């Protein structure tokens, strides 16, 4: 059965794995592999096209675009990972507590979740940035604060399902402590589906973070974050469209990688079989 579904979606999942794999390689070794110092300015050779020295040309300050893209991979992906971790850090405890304690606490926590859920993500980040000033850190905090409610709800649902299982009920009746219960029975059940969701969420997080940087309220130049590079390249859009194409394509590929990976895994776990006529 497993083999079968693997074969049913080989292309998508494999493409996703390969894309993510390549990006991870670049993220960890990109800085050292990059042909130039990503922040080295060559003020004489500004806005140059492709050449052997500068494979993707130079930006408005004469920095090598390829090197910046490569060294920016770690920052861009790292920021998304950090955001994902922060989201889980808020969402998992709240979802768990809500489901396990129940009653008033559950009600209160879910109301708070509702309240946070109501504000649009970008505006939330904007307000946070109003506190901390525009930087990648504030973008991460803003996005995490706006994002945790949906995940908290998911954790809540998963935990409630897990709690309803017979063996969990049984061990609960045996008087096992809540912490032990969570570690031994709940987490093993909720983590796998959570990771599938997080893989899909990673795609959206990457998109949102790069949008914020593009708007000038996320990562700030000279940081070589992809969205920030796009922001910097925007004035030179008509002169050197390539400056805009390369980071945009890279973002799309990274997002697509996570989407394909998430969809692929989900497809594998999905064993519905629809009727046909």
């Amino acid at each position: 059965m497993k083999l079968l579904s693997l074969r049913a979606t080989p292309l998508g999942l494999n493409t996703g794995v390969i894309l993510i794999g390549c990006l991870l390689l670049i993220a960890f070794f990109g800085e050292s592999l990059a042909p130039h110092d990503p922040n080295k300015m060559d003020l004489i050779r500004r806005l140059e096209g492709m050449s052997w020295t500068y494979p993707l040309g130079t930006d408005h300050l004469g920095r090598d675009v390829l090197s910046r893209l490569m060294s920016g991979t770690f920052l861009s992906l790292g920021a998304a990972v950090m955001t994902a971790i922060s989201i889980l850090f808020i969402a998992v405890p709240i979802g768990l507590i809500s489901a396990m304690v129940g009653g008033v606490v559950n009600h209160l926590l879910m109301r708070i979740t509702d309240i946070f859920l109501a504000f649009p993500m970008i505006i939330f980040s904007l307000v946070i940035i109003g506190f901390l000033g525009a930087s990648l850190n504030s973008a991460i905090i803003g996005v995490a604060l706006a994002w945790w409610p949906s995940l908290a709800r998911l954790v809540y649902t998963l935990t409630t399902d897990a709690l309803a299982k017979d063996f969990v009920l049984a061990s609960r009746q045996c008087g096992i402590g809540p912490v032990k219960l969570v570690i031994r029975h709940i987490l093993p059940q909720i983590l796998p589906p959570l990771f599938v969701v997080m893989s899909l969420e990673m795609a959206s997080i990457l998109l949102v973070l790069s949008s914020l940087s593009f708007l000038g309220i996320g990562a700030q130049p000279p940081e070589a974050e992809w969205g920030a590079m796009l922001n910097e390249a925007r004035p030179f859009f008509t002169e050197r469209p390539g400056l805009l194409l390369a980071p945009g394509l890279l973002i799309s590929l990274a997002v697509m990688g996570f989407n394909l990976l998430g969809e692929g895994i989900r497809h594998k776990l999905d064993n519905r079989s629809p009727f046909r006529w």
Partner: protein
Amino acid sequence: MVDTPLFKLNHLTICQQGKDQNPIIDDVSFSLNQGQRLGLIGRSGCGKSVTSHAIMDILRPPLVRKQGQAILQGQDLFTLSAAEKRRIRGQGMFCIFQSPGSALHPALTIKQQMIEIATVIEQDQTTIINAVEYAFDRMQLPIRCLTQYPHHLSGGMKQRVLMAMALLLKPTLLIADEPTTGLDVLTEQDVLKAMEIMLEETQSACLFISHDIRIVKRVCNDLLVMKDGKIVDRCTRDELTYRERAETTREIIDAMKVA
């Protein structure tokens, strides 16, 4: 008449996609005559329901048909186009499945689900309403059920709604796939009674699938016994004596006795 049976299933073989060994259904053949009631018994998971799906040609992936013919009144169903198959379904063949709980659409009223049959049997609104009311009367269902949603009805009632559908469709071949599973003994009696009435009226040939030999004996004259996707025994109701039968048949009869 005797030479060309109403329905004939030839060498049906079903496998999982990509795995040709260990077919789920292995070279199954049988035939049914006008008005004949054929019982198909076997333990759960032996392939009875898959057979019924295969005959209706609604197998779900990863199951695929490797070979076989299903000839209804001289036409091989498996070679027909989608549109032609649709024309056969309903009036040519109909199937009452197990688990009546999920068989009816939860968000449509019983009336809506009955009346849409008009599009299949090409009747106008008033005729179909009359026909539906008649069928409900025959199935001893209260008319008020019509305006209700499936979750208001008991399991037995839902099964009788399905019988009423069959009554409207008057299929040439009716497959009843464990229609009494999950019902209590009293309801079971009602459903079987309703089915008796329905079959009498529609004069359909019936393939009755069950794991319960007691019920099969009550409904059917002829029996097929299935094990691991193969027909292991064929007999009439009267031939069903303990000693001479195949091992599977004996096991089933044994199981009955214990129960």
